[in-house]
């Protein structure tokens, strides 16, 4: 038996030859053998008893998985607009020069691969990159050269970390240079809670009473959509099926969002406490933390905290000695796909499939993970739950605004004096936040990431809450020297890259939106293009299958709404019958060269 075959059998056996653990299997195979080769695909399929195409469809879906060998070290540069604003362009060129390759290539000795990747959740310390699992922040051209020299010397990315970050970033199990940058603490998330205190209070009540408390608190989901958490739990509890599942969405892929990273680093206990309470309330024994692949560096710490909680009786059999309540949590690592933050894709991914969204209904609360009623909530939502059970729903509902009780974490980055994470009561005015972060002169603010809204000064007096400027927590600030049309282009590039490709409006529509925005940026736009953009954007929104396509045109629509004069200044009336995007000289040039005569119809 070859080494590969033996290795794969062993890995598959670790996961009980269970094909729903395909994500873990292929990640382990890749970690050991460098890639999931064509031969490996067959071997895995055989071991878990599925078709090769099933394995291949998973491997081909995720950015971090590959069937072709890559370098032993993979440098992934963050392609987000923030990183570009803070100098990623020259940094990328410095990497290219030092390595003697272009982005997208591997060094001839097979040692190092250089790639782009979408936002890695480090916008407050941009430009940043991930090298294997090690995050490097505040890059410069000098640092790029040093990194390459160090990697060539030691071959170990972990050696790149010289100065450790604050808090648990310095924990022996993390040892990362990442900074938390917690700038403003509030009473709900960024506050201490002795492990178990909220859980014990919950276990003293009946599950239905716990759900009633969560409903009384009027807690709404923090992941973006703002669905009432208590109602979701109630649906899940009432759905048919013995086996029920609690999932925490820690995919945090929305560019500009990094608050969940900070919670996971510093307040993981609070999160796990919330998940256990959810398990008790809906009647689940199993919890899954879906951790984005970019945050793999935190996994040893999170595993450790889970173990500590098990040892303390806060997880496992008879949690806190409560008869009949067993609950444990496993971590499912993602592999670089933004769409997996969408809850049905996330469930697909947990099931070992490609991260395609599922049709609704049935909703996850009815039929989710492996067909079981499943409740998916954001990291911050679970933290709120723990606090609600500890302090009481009345206390929580008093904070924030009427329609949006509690506090909200904001990940602030871009052109401001103090980027980082801020906890505010809901209802805070955008201008107040801008003042606090040192960005009163902001020319544009992206609220809620690319799928949210780009607003200008006219909207700064609006308040951050579900019923006004809703946001999953990302606030990206642009000063007057930034080109908002270019920002929108970058966001569209992101959506084009991250669309799962299942439905045409999103797969094709976003490409067309991007093309038109690029034409306009290059001075090839006409006034009629603005109407075209608006119509196309609306079509993509209403005809796409999942939340990605339903929100991907938002940057374009925001631009048309809040920054129309900028667009109008860029478009010009058409000069003749030809569209400005058609270049007859370019269309004829290669033939003229080949045949050796000039056109007599369209003379140069």
């Amino acid at each position, binding site marked *: 038996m070859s080494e590969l075959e033996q290795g794969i059998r062993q890995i598959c056996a670790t996961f009980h030859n269970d094909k729903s653990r395909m994500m873990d299997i292929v990640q382990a195979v890749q970690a050991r053998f460098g890639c999931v080769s064509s031969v490996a695909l067959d071997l895995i399929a055989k071991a878990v008893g599925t078709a090769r195409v099933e394995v291949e469809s998973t491997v081909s879906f995720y950015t971090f998985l590959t069937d072709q060998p890559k370098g032993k070290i993979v440098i992934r540069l963050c392609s987000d607009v923030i990183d570009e604003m803070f100098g990623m362009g020259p940094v990328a060129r410095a990497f290219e020069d030092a390595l003697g390759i272009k982005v997208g290539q591997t060094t001839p000795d097979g040692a190092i691969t250089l790639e782009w990747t979408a936002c890695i959740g480090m916008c407050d310390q941009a430009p940043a990159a991930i090298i294997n699992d090690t995050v490097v922040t505040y890059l410069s051209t000098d640092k790029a050269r040093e990194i390459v020299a160090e990697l060539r010397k030691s071959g170990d990315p972990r050696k790149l970390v010289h100065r450790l970050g604050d808090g648990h970033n310095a924990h022996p199990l993390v040892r990362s240079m990442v900074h938390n940058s917690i700038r403003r603490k509030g009473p709900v998330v960024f506050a201490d809670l002795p492990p178990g205190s909220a859980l014990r209070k919950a276990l003293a009540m009946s599950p239905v009473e716990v759900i009633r408390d969560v409903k009384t608190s009027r807690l709404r989901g923090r992941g973006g959509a703002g669905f009432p958490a208590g109602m979701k739990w109630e649906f899940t509890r009432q759905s048919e099926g013995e086996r029920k599942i609690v999932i925490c969405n820690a995919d945090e892929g929305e560019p500009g969002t990094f608050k969940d990273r900070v919670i996971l680093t510093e307040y993981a206990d609070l999160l796990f406490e919330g998940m256990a309470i959810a398990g008790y309330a809906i009647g689940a024994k199993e919890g899954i933390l879906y951790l984005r692949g970019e945050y793999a560096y935190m996994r040893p710490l999170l595993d450790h905290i889970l173990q500590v909680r098990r040892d303390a009786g806060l997880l496992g059999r008879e949690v806190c000695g409560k008869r009949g309540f067993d609950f444990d949590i496993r971590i499912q690592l993602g592999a670089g796909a933004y769409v997996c933050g969408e809850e049905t894709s996330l469930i697909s991914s947990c099931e070992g499939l490609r991260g395609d969204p599922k049709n609704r209904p049935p909703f996850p609360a009815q039929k989710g993970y492996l067909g079981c009623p499943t409740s998916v909530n954001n990291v911050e939502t679970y933290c709120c739950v723990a606090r609600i059970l500890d302090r009481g729903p009345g206390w929580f509902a008093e904070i924030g605004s009427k329609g949006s009780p509690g506090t909200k974490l904001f990940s602030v980055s871009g052109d401001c004096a103090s980027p980082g994470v801020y906890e505010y009561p809901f209802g805070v005015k955008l201008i107040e936040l801008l003042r606090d972060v040192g960005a009163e002169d902001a020319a544009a603010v992206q609220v809620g990431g690319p799928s949210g809204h780009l607003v200008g000064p006219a909207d700064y007096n609006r308040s951050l809450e579900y019923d006004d400027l809703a946001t999953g927590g990302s606030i990206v600030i642009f000063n007057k020297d930034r080109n908002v049309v270019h920002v929108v282009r970058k966001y569209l590039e992101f959506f084009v890259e991250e669309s799962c490709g299942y439905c045409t409006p999103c797969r094709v529509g976003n490409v067309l939106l991007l093309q038109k925005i690029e034409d306009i940026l290059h001075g090839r736009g006409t006034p009629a293009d603005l109407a075209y953009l608006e119509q196309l954007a609306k079509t993509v929104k209403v005809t796409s299958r999942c939340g990605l396509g339903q929100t991907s045109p938002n940057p374009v629509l925001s631009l048309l709404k809040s920054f129309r004069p900028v667009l109008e200044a860029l478009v010009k009336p058409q000069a*003749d019958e030809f569209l400005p995007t058609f270049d007859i000289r370019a269309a004829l040039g290669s033939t003229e060269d080949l045949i050796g005569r000039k056109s007599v119809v369209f003379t140069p």
Partner: protein
Amino acid sequence: MAKPKVATASLAGCFGCHMSILDIDERILQLIELVDFDKSPVDDIKEFTGRCAVGLIEGGCCNEENVRVLKDFRKHCDILISVGECAICGGIPAMRNTIPLKECMDEAYRNGPSVYNPTGVYPNDPALPLVLNKVYPCHEVVKIDYHLQGCPPPADTIWQALVALLTNKPMDLPYELIKYD
């Protein structure tokens, strides 16, 4: 009142779409009541005689002559319609778009199994239009107002579209006429 005029052209197409235009059968007599034909292969008028209400374009642009004609149509027609797959997407001719131009030319004029060309020159008489680097759908060259899908679009679709435009009424296309799979 003078009747509105209609013009048609076949660019890089197979004339199938024009056949479909003629396929409106005896309704062509009704159409003649409604409109006059200007530049078109149907009546063999070679150059525009004046402004037209509607231009129907079959085929995409594969050479400079196609581009010239299309530009001329845009100049003379109030409304320009791409008729059929070739005009809308490039169609069969656009299959060459995935092959580098030189390879196409070599296969056609130098290396093809039936080619006899000992000197290896490409045809280059100035009377021959130069081919473009690739085949362009019409709406990438000039503004196109409407698209009629099909290969070719059914005669009824073309008829309905023309009548709707010329009588300023909404178009009534039954599902069978716009369903293609």
